[in-house]
């Protein structure tokens, strides 16, 4: 399974991007956050994708495609963890079960700090 490293970034750093039209969901196997900065860091994992046009079950009305690709403004927040200064957080499979990702996944912190490192392990299924 791949493991990707990124540092906290307020505009979002891409962790992985599936190929266009990917048929898989990504599932997290592990998440490690090493915050060596003097400030607490709020880490979010954002899922960015576009839906397909559909119809509503209730009335058959057109449901237009929706775009969640503007990372900070529209990306779906799938996970949020706040790590105190000089702390290390490790989440395993049990903690991450059910966090499915459909599109490009970004990690975003609430401050810019190269001292806060995020490593995500994931697989597609």
């Amino acid at each position, binding site marked *: 399974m791949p493991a990707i490293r990124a540092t906290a970034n307020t505009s979002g750093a891409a962790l992985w991007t599936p190929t266009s*039209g*990917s*048929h*898989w*969901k990504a599932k997290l196997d592990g998440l490690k956050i090493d915050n060596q900065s003097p400030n607490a860091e709020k880490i979010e994992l954002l899922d960015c*994708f*576009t*839906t*397909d*046009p*559909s*119809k*509503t*079950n*209730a*009335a*058959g009305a057109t*449901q237009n495609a*929706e775009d969640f690709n503007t990372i900070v403004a529209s990306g*779906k927040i799938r996970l949020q963890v706040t790590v105190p200064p000089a702390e290390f957080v490790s989440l395993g499979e049990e903690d991450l079960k059910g966090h*499915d990702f*459909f599109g490009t996944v970004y990690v975003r912190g609430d401050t810019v700090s190269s001292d806060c490192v995020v490593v995500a392990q994931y697989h597609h*299924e």
Partner: protein
Amino acid sequence: MIELRPVEVPTTRPKILLYDQWVRFSDKFPSGLSHVKGKYMKVAKQVQVTYPLTRIIKENCYIDIDLSNEDGAERLFPDNDGNLYEILIGLRPGHWWVIPYFPADQPVYRLDYPTMSPLVSDAKLRYLGNIRPEDSPADDPLLRLYAVYKLKPVVLRMVVDAGVDYEKCSMVFDINRCHMEEGTPPEGSRVKFIEYIDELKF
């Protein structure tokens, strides 16, 4: 006895048509499908082709997938009268299901009482006759369709349940592409009988 879904449940991967195997098409195929109606045919060549299909759908919404060769459809049907496609349809896990329609807007699975047909706008009837990912998983598909040249459209309605926000729905089509030759099976041959889909709507 009550069965959740009265289908054959094999203990291994479902068998597919193989080289040299005989099939017989039902007499109930319409006259427009005279190239197969009531005929015996033998598999002369075969090859398996996989085709995945994925849609990301908002909760409480649906998308119709037309498998035929019509404009804008997926074009998973044979394009000449000598071919038969045995299509195994597997669904990847998620909070969604499919409702098959043939032709186009008529549900395949319904009950006798006139109102007991699948209806996505109805809270109860949207679950009637549905096929869920656990019913036909992608790695062991049980939903099977036999498609011949000029078969009317088969539509799979992909429905996402309420309360799930969004769902990434994936189907995998394992298409056993068979080239058929008409003939008479030798005595004692095992012959697979292929019904017309309308025969399920008795």
